[in-house]
């Protein structure tokens, strides 16, 4: 253990040899997760205590604090070593991620202590993102809980492949082997589909130190490793050198005209001087001329090293691009599918623009489709329109510009991103890329995934078809025109479909026979539907005399998106206004199939809005209509 070197070993040469030993140590990052009372903080406190990283003055503070805040009756409350913030102490719970450090003779450890309550999924995801292993704590008295599965799922989602299942408080179940075996078995079953490479269950008592750093005669039936032994010896796949070379360009170092170096941290693989490399986004190739480091140029470098590469050629590349191996290139796309863990207080909104940030790249991105939400208790896929805070889902994203990436399963460093709210700058989601959406599919996806809601959200409005029906001369067009002007002035995106105008183009082959009138309205209905689908507020001004056709247009649209407005002006009034001289012609027999004269008008039975125009100016009528629209949430 770290402080086990005795006073006789403190001569200078001993220090050097001790440090040389230290040099051979590797590093393991792990996180601990469990429910509120499973004893995570106590366990970490115990690890620090048993590996002697608690200094004497901290111990004195601890004894003093234990009397004041402690929940462990007489013994030291190890959790108090770890629970940092005042608020947490008062509540007796951990509320954020805390990082702890300890070392043994074989390894250095960085521990992320993450809270177990439901609402703090984001903290666990944060801790898991840099961890190689997760310690999942279970209270031996309570067994595998929904939270246990949830934590294991998040660990798996964030790419953790090794689990240490700490069956804690084994002392409180009489050190019973059967209880331990049952929990271990039930955990294995519950997490069988999560793709863990190893699951090692250990019976422990954090409070009494059983099987933490030392064995205990009370669990003599247990023959496996202690926690510390397992943490020291587990082979995590930390050797990222076998994967293809990936170098995210972080910073272009150009102190003068003679030097241009690409600075970054090698995400995976190795690079040697002279190696051919490809700039991912442009496909341009060059060779590595120098691997610059402050201690002198290197012949080769590997995953994890922060270096500066100088290339043979002056090729264009900047922050956000990847230098990669030519024979195993990353994806470059502006369309991708990803798993998302939502952190934002505001729910995810399809169609809203976020900033998507990878390790070094940053682009505008829109969630084009939420394919499903994942129930993290039973891992089922559920239909959903949105993700609330701490929910997990799979979605498609459309980016303003292509990024270079790998699938997360192949490379955690180049397959991950976060989403940032453009207004608050809050980090609202973590993303793990599943795969790119190919170009051929892009058209397909575009068409399906930028949907009506997305388009409408972009316009900040609710798409709707305002269908004006009434006799010729009733004032439909005047009212619709006035309303459109008002909506337009208010920043709404609108389109006015007018009966007369449509007959000059789309419907110029149609006459006024009943069948033609039906087809006229069918076509107009389809066009109105497309326009509403485009996110527009559509004003349709048509006599549309037959109930059935108006109703079939209504049926084309979702409930609430067809508003029937009956411009109820009596026939006599219309005939008297006769703005286009049509009634006169019809009465004179010069026009046939004229509504109200020799063709019927079926007045709406239950229109959403009925407007009387007699005795009111068009402006007054429009004002009344507008207030109805506002009251009913249309604008």
């Amino acid at each position, binding site marked *: 253990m770290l402080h086990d070197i005795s006073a006789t070993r403190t001569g200078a040469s001993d220090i050097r040899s001790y440090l040389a030993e230290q040099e051979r140590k*590797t*590093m393991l990052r792990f996180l601990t997760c469990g429910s509120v009372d499973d004893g995570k903080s106590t366990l970490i406190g115990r690890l620090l205590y048993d590996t002697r990283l608690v200094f004497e003055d901290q111990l004195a503070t601890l004894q003093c604090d234990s009397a004041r805040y402690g929940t462990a009756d007489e013994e030291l409350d190890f959790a108090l070593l*770890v629970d*940092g913030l005042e608020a947490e102490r008062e509540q007796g719970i951990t509320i954020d991620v*805390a990082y702890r450090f300890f070392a043994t003779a074989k390894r250095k450890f960085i521990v992320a202590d993450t809270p177990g309550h439901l609402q703090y999924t984001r903290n666990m995801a944060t801790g898991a993102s840099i961890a190689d292993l997760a310690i999942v704590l279970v209270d031996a008295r309570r067994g595998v809980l929904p939270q246990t599965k949830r934590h294991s799922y998040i660990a798996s989602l964030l790419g953790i492949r090794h689990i240490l299942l700490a069956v804690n408080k084994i002392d409180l179940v009489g050190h019973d082997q059967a209880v331990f075996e049952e929990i271990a078995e039930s955990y294995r079953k519950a997490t069988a589909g999560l793709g863990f490479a190893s699951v090692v269950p250990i019976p422990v008592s954090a409070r009494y130190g059983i099987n933490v750093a030392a064995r205990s005669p009370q669990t003599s039936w247990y023959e496996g490793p202690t926690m510390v032994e397992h943490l020291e010896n587990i082979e995590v796949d930390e050797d990222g050198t076998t994967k293809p070379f990936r170098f995210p360009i972080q*910073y272009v170092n150009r102190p003068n005209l003679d030097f241009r170096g690409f600075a970054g941290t090698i995400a995976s693989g190795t690079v040697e001087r002279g190696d051919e490399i490809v700039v991912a986004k442009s496909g341009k190739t060059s060779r590595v001329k120098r691997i610059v480091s402050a201690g002198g140029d290197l012949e080769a470098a590997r995953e994890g090293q922060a270096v500066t590469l100088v290339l043979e050629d002056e090729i264009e590349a900047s922050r956000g691009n990847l230098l990669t191996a030519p024979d195993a290139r990353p994806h470059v796309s502006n369309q991708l599918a990803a798993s998302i863990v939502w952190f934002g207080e505001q729910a995810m909104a399809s169609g809203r623009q976020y900033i998507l940030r990878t390790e070094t790249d940053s682009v505008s991105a829109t969630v084009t489709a939420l394919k499903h939400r994942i129930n993290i208790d039973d891992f089922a896929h559920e239909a959903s329109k949105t993700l609330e805070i701490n929910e997990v889902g799979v979605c498609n994203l459309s980016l303003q510009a292509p990024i270079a990436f790998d699938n997360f399963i192949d490379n955690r460093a180049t397959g991950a991103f976060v989403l*940032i709210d453009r207004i608050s700058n*809050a980090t609202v989601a973590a993303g793990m890329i599943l795969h790119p959406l190919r170009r051929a599919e892009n058209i397909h996806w575009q068409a399906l995934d930028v949907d009506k809601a997305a388009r409408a959200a972009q316009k900040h409005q609710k798409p709707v078809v305002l269908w004006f029906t009434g006799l010729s001369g009733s004032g439909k067009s005047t009212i619709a025109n006035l309303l459109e002007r008002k909506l337009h002035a208010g920043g709404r995106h609108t389109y006015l479909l007018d009966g007369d105008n449509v007959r000059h183009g789309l419907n110029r082959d149609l006459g006024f026979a009943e069948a033609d009138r039906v087809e006229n309205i069918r076509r107009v209905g389809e066009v109105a539907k497309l326009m509403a689908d485009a996110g527009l507020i559509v004003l349709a001004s048509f006599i549309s005399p037959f109930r059935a056709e108006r109703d079939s247009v209504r049926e084309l649209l979702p409930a609430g998106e067809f508003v029937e407005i009956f411009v109820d002006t009596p026939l006599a009034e219309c005939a008297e206004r006769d703005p286009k001289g049509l009634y006169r012609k019809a009465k004179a027999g010069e026009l046939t199939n004229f509504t109200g004269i020799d063709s019927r008008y079926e007045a709406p039975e239950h229109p959403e809005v009925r407007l009387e125009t007699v005795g009111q100016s068009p402006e007054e009528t429009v004002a009344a209509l507008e207030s109805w629209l506002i009251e009913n949430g249309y604008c």
Partner: protein
Amino acid sequence: MLARLSHLDRLEAEAIHIFREVAASFDNPVMLYSIGKDSSVLLHLAMKAFYPAKPPFPLLHVDTTWKFREMIAFRDATAQRLGLDLIVHINEEGVAQGINPIDSGSSVHTHIMKTLGLRQALELHGFDAAFGGARRDEEKSRAKERIFSFRDDHHSWDPKNQRPEMWRIYNTRIRQGESIRVFPLSNWTELDIWQYILQEDIPIVPLYLAAERPVIERDGMLIMLDDERLKLRPGEKIQTRKVRFRTLGCYPLTGAMESDATTLDAVVGEMLNTRVSERQGRLIDRDEAGSMEKKKREGYF
């Protein structure tokens, strides 16, 4: 095949990555330089991160006017040796009010000369990102702080509203007036710092090595008489003892420890055997439990 990376290699790479990220993402960064061993390591890493260029930001020292004389000499020599811009800021209002660590008390002195001095300097120069050498192993509230730690336009830290920090992806977006404190040494321990100083042969202030120094015993600590401003109280006697410092701050607030460690190797040897944690030598943390969290909320580093 290339060798495995040791934990120090990994810590070094992480810190270099953080330096570059700030240089690439912020308009006007600055590095807080407090002259201590952690600052020495921080500066060494900054030099490495931008080699062969120099770090694209100045150093800032918030001078309380009560630092050890050897610290000030070391500071000036270091800036000159490396050819870096050094900004020294003193809270002149505090000086005018006669604030000092002896009469004003450690808490008032630290708040006015250090915390307020720092805020003044950051506002005066409009820095949008400031590097500090804090480590998570120093103190419990630091253990929870992000590497990129967001501060509002009052320099305040809100421990309950921290941005999730995932992978090596840092959210560097801020609005006008807001800033980020950045801690590249977050994941280093005190032992890592010493080991790295040895491995890289990094210059440090000689006060870290044991030497015969004039000290008095006060409030259970050995306080070095660095200049004539520290007046003896009745009963206090100047003694010459062989002492060194584990941590450096304002001299009347920084306790020395008796030691025979006159070389770095010996210091690390003592460190490995030590049973007393680092900040115990500093008065400011003993004021009350949770005191660091309070200071940080007020804008302390």
